[in-house]
């Protein structure tokens, strides 16, 4: 299948293609018709002999992306269409696999991720390696918020909790995109604010709310993120997120199961009664849900004054 062009492609026959930061082909280490066509922008895809894969060049990727269809990630969907189109060449589709760690605390953020589905948990890791979830990112958001504020290092561990897919962008290109795309900047400012409020809410929730209500809240969030009634989430992962021992999670999950709100089998959770689960959850689910929809006056203004090409 097609993929994003890596920085170096060994196309076979002694041909090496290198890519520069802006996505353009730097050189084809061999003269000939392929090089000529490449330089005049007549090439759509490059074949990589090492991986047996076809790589689409940015223009082609832009054209082939389902720009006419619904955009799965809400942040990207909120952008004016021409801004979204201008970003597409720099967005690379990736698969999110459960338990994959996108960043460790203190690590440089190499990419930002816009999940289409699946969910990424932001965990605060303490010195004794105990963890607590301080944020959750699904299709409504982006992983890599520190970059919006110009910080390159992740303060948290970002770990995939439910498999899915995402579009990711290299950190350098993301900063360039922020600089030139005003609507993106404002959408992300709004999102960063919502994330900050979410973390505050989670802090209070952890201190004041009962584990069963917190678990119900967390499962509803997962349900929203993965957009499926059944998803994989082990008790161990839930214990990591809620900062508890596994046995505490098992007890709370059993209680929810007994009330026929959820089903649980072989690490897979099934939401049986969403309404009932909402009633069992703490107030935080409603509060966090409202945060995701908080409008920023500045966002509308940004679009109004946006220079037209």
């Amino acid at each position: 299948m097609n993929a994003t062009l890596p920085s170096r492609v060994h196309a076979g026959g002694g041909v090496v293609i290198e890519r520069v930061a802006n996505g353009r082909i730097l050189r084809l280490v061999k003269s000939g018709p392929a090089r000529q066509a490449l330089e005049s922008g007549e090439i759509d895809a490059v074949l990589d002999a090492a991986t047996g894969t076809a790589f689409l060049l940015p223009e082609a990727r832009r054209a082939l992306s389902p720009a006419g269809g619904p955009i799965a990630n809400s942040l990207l969907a909120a952008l004016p269409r021409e801004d979204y189109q201008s970003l597409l060449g720099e967005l690379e589709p990736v698969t999110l696999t459960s338990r994959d760690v996108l960043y460790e605390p203190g690590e440089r953020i190499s990419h930002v991720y816009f999940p289409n589905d699946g969910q990424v948990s932001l965990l605060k890791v303490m010195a004794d390696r105990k963890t607590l979830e301080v944020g959750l990112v699904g299709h409504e958001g982006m992983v890599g918020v520190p970059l919006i504020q110009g910080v390159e290092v992740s303060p948290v561990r970002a770990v995939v909790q439910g498999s899915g897919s995402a579009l990711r962008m290299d950190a350098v290109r993301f900063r360039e995109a922020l600089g030139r795309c005003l609507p993106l900047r404002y959408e992300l400012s709004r999102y960063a604010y919502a994330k900050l409020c979410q973390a505050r809410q989670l802090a209070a929730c952890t201190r004041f709310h009962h584990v069963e209500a917190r678990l119900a809240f967390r499962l509803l969030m997962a349900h929203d993120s993965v957009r499926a009634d059944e998803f994989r989430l082990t008790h161990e992962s839930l214990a990591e997120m809620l900062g508890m021992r596994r046995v505490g999670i098992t007890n709370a999950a059993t209680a929810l199961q007994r009330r026929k709100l959820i089903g649980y089998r072989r690490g897979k959770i099934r939401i049986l009664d969403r309404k009932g689960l909402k009633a069992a959850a703490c107030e935080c689910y409603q509060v966090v849900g409202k945060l995701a929809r908080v409008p920023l006056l500045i966002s509308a203004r940004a679009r109004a004054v946006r220079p037209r090409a």
Partner: protein
Amino acid sequence: MRPKKSKSRASSRAVTAVVVMRLYIADGAPNSVKAVANLEAICKEYLKDGFELEIVDVLDFPRRALADGVLVTPHLAKLSPSPAAMVVGNLSDRRSLLGALGIHE
């Protein structure tokens, strides 16, 4: 393969043997769409029914393309009659396309 007479009446342009070609594209991508259109136009004008064209989408069959020595798309390979030839790019350069196909205006 048995040579087939072209139905073209333009005798100066007519090609007597069937031209067998394979076009490697990334289906839906702009240059590939152009290449198909440009090639179709040339075929209609000069070859009429005297050609066989197979279109290979490298997004579906990358390994096959690699096995055939294709590095980039669009890539047109003229397989027969000999000499074999190839053109890369969106085939908008009419003269080099005609040259590769052995068509003399």
